[in-house]
């Protein structure tokens, strides 16, 4: 099974020349190239009189986008318009294109190109790429986002949470959850599938919050959890710091 869960996240900013902002983000076996054009002129039939239209396009690595991509686009669109200052650009369009280039493959199964199942595990990588591209395009945001995918499994009668599970772990899990938090520590997106109780969900939210925003939750992650992934909120911040430092080198 090809997963790179052990290696940390990597990002490359502003590398495409024709888009206003662009980023490539790779983490947990996914690599996504994102580009933002905006604010540009919106089509007459789409424009909103007092706000900018946020348009998200998700394109799969192989095959044409179907219902699965439309579903992801819907989730991303409603999440991102919460953090973009849409009222600053009335009647404009902010167009976000996310191209999936590498998705983890399961060596034990021959995959079909057209898959009808939902694809929650890719959501954190898409959100992270979208946020990085928006910052690369200098679109004003209220907050940045950090998100995580958690699988809940039952092993030998005891429940266990796996952060950034591999394809095989997802197959065996009872339920799968995706959460996104703003940099202020507020929950902005939650998606769950599978079987779980309310109590389990609350426990998972708590560990997701510890994972995404360690500073605001007041809880210190002592590193006792071996499956703990990278802190994407801090990662975004350090990537931007490095970018700004290199951009303002001349000063």
């Amino acid at each position, binding site marked *: 099974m*090809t997963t790179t869960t052990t290696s940390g996240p990597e990002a490359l900013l502003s590398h495409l020349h024709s888009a206003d902002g662009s980023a490539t983000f790779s983490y947990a076996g996914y690599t996504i190239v994102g580009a933002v054009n905006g604010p*540009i002129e919106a089509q007459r039939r789409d424009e909103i009189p007092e706000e900018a239209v946020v348009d998200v396009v998700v394109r799969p690595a192989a095959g044409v986008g179907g219902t699965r991509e439309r579903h992801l686009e819907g989730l991303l669109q409603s999440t991102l318009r919460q953090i973009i200052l849409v009222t600053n650009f009335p009647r404009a369009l902010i167009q976000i294109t996310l191209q999936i280039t590498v998705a983890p493959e399961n060596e034990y199964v021959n995959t079909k*190109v057209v898959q009808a199942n939902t694809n929650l595990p890719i959501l954190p990588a898409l959100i992270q790429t979208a946020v990085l591209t928006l910052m690369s395009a200098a679109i004003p945001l209220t907050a940045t986002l950090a998100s995580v995918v958690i699988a809940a499994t039952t092993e030998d009668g005891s429940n266990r949470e796996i952060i950034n599970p591999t394809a095989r772990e997802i197959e065996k899990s009872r339920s799968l959850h995706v959460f996104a938090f703003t940099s202020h520590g507020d929950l902005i997106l939650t998606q769950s599938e599978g079987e779980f109780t309310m109590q389990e969900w609350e426990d998972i939210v708590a560990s997701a919050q510890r994972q995404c925003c360690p500073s605001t939750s007041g809880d210190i992650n002592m590193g006792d959890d071996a499956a703990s992934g990278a802190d994407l909120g801090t990662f975004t911040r350090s990537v931007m710091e490095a970018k700004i430092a290199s951009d303002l080198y001349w000063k």
Partner: protein
Amino acid sequence: MPREAEPSQNEKDFILKAVREGHRLDGRALDQFRQLDLQFGEQYGVADVTLGKTRILAKVTAEVTVPYTDRPFDGIFTITTELSPMASPAFEVNRPTETEVLLSRLLEKTVRRSNSLDTESLCLVAGQKCWSIRVDLHVLSHDGNLIDASCLAVVAALRHFRKPDTSIEGDTLTVYTPAEREPVPLSWLHSPFCITFSFFGSISVGEDGEEKDIWLLDTTLLEEQLRVSSCTISMNKHGEICQVAKPGGAPVEAVTVVQCSSLALQKVKDLSDFVDQKLAEDSKHRNKGGLLAELSADNAR
């Protein structure tokens, strides 16, 4: 945005005058390509081509399907090109532009109709099961000469690709996963490459006022917007022409086309050697310790 912003009059005059005098904005010779780079992904069948600021990603996938009823002995081979707003805000989603239609048509003629991939070898059970090979082309950044770069990406990705191994015993067809058996390469017959010539009118040379066409190779987006016509020649390194396309534009002397095709052969040989070298490097990188030959269940022919 419905269309690309046009260059200003000053820009146009400057570039055209420079081209007439034999100079280009980036200091290249008229028949010189930009810096070309080709990278293969971790997975089989992923090729990332960078030509100057143009960047193209090709991904090949295979799955088992039912063949077309009128061609029961052939597998299915498709090339999909869809230009996204990532390449330029002028491209809209789900609305193909002229560039996109021309690009997919040319790739179709160059790679598919020239029989570079032996589709008969993709047949598993006649009339019932066959491989469907699909190439997805993603234009990440568009700075001119999409055709040549795309063709290179498609050919490189297909030659890099490995499909799952299969076996037939009696009536049962087994498709092995990569964990069970090392995947096998496609049956590849020849590698065609496209070379696009962009024409910029003619100038008179010599004392008798003889007219000579000016053409450029590997144009940038700006130069492409100013050209009067273009001609794409596809051939393999043996000099076999797969197709010649000159879609409209200003007329060009027949002699020029002949000259272009002989120069195209030279460029195609360079590109062909470049791809061969990159593929060899990649296989050397993957074949650490020389164990790949033992894993392979392929018969030596």
